[in-house]
């Protein structure tokens, strides 16, 4: 297969969408850079969204690519993939994982029961600038710091301090809840309701926030 079949380029409103074909990563990587170097004038200064399909990309590969693109004057702003490992990597690096419109294949997944039951497992501190989006529930073992955002179509559970922005039931699920050992988010949203945290308490305790008759309420959480 020639390079041009492996690398499809499409113009978008806010940049270029490059879709990679099916091959090993090293082949695709070479083909992509080859294409770019061939048309360097066209690519210079571009914002690039890269659809890598099912490729599993880790931090090393993605940062290497981002730096190589950056050396060619190209900004990598989004990495689209149906591999959850790759999405995870992109989110860690602060790259977008979807274009402004939902991709057709993610829209069809919304009402499948599997999405409802799945949870994204995050075992680290979610720091400022990181935005985690997930179709389903999100469980964080660690803190969510101010400046971080967690957007879930289901519920969000934080085993730690929640101080960033959290949106549960982001696609309208009014039964979604948000729980944290210290629930002090910058902003808390469930479905379409928005609240901010009142004055900080001296001694934090676990709380669960939910919608009651259309209003956001947080109550202390007691085991049993």
């Amino acid at each position, binding site marked *: 297969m020639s390079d041009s079949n492996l690398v499809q380029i499409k113009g978008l409103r806010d940049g270029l969408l490059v879709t990679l074909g099916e091959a090993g990563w090293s082949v695709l990587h070479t083909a992509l850079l080859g294409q770019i170097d061939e048309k360097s004038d066209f690519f210079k200064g571009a914002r690039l969204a890269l659809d890598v399909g099912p490729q599993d990309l880790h931090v090393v590969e993605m*940062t290497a690519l981002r730096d190589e693109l*950056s050396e060619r004057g190209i900004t990598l702003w989004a990495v689209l993939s149906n591999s959850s490992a790759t999405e995870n990597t992109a989110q860690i690096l602060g790259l977008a994982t979807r274009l402004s419109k939902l991709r057709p294949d993610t829209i069809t997944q919304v009402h499948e029961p599997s999405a409802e039951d799945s949870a994204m497992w995050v075992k680290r501190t979610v720091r400022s*600038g990181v935005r985690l989006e997930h179709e389903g529930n999100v469980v964080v073992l660690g*803190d969510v710091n101010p*400046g971080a955002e967690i957007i879930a179509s289901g519920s969000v559970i934080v085993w730690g301090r929640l101080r960033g922005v959290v949106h549960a039931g982001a696609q309208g699920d009014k039964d979604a809840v948000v729980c944290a050992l210290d629930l002090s988010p910058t902003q808390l949203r469930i479905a379409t309701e928005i609240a901010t945290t009142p004055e900080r308490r001296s001694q934090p305790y676990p709380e669960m926030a939910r919608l009651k008759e259309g209003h956001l309420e947080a109550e202390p959480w007691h085991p049993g």
Partner: protein
Amino acid sequence: MTAKVVTIASGKGGVGKTTAVANIAVGLAQDGRKVVCIDGDIGLRNLDVIMGLENRIVYDIVDVVEGRCRLRQAMIRDKRLPELFLIPAAQTRDKNAVSPSDMVRLCDELRQECEWVLIDSPAGIERGFRNSIAPADKVLIVTNPEVSAVRDADRVIGLLEAEGKTDQGLIINRLNLSMVKRGDMLSVDDVLDLLAIELVGIVPEDENVIVSSNRGTPIVLDGKSKASQAFINISQRLQGQHVPFIDLEDHDGLWSRLTKFAKGGE
């Protein structure tokens, strides 16, 4: 010799990265180490001014990268300490004149030449920052006890973690103890609580730091003040020594609690 490459970063500007680089470098050089500082802030160079070496610049880092001079030619020897060198940034170019891989190559060459390479990262998280952290073995994050500076430090720590740069240390600069006591400034505990990385130094606010920076004589060379002692302690901790955190007050209390020599409560 195999140098350790340490990058000093912060995210937010104006928190004291450049001052920290100059003073830690002087501290290491006073211990007899051979140290090379690199100014990573191409286009907005400052480190040469603070070290008082501005008028000695002939070649800069871009000249090295673009092959107009040899590495040795761009290393400016300090006028006080013969084992301290500076590779200045170019003032008339921008961050894109150097790439992360250029920095890695340059530092690999320097590793043979000296014991410590300190890189002064520019503010921000863009190209200049990525250039500066690319070759780092360790990254020191400088922050002030202010909400915005801590927020940016948190972002930087997250980016470093994502790139696998997990050897990190925190410097809390410009701590004003009386403001902390009045509850008008974040305490060391507040900052550590949020950032959760290893603390390598607490530098008290001291107007002499500004005076000495303006004079091009890093405050460590003056020696006496608590800020100067704090920077010396950081350079000793970098070398693996266990140095207790200095008592910023003359009596026990809040400070001793922070420094883990608690007598319990206040």
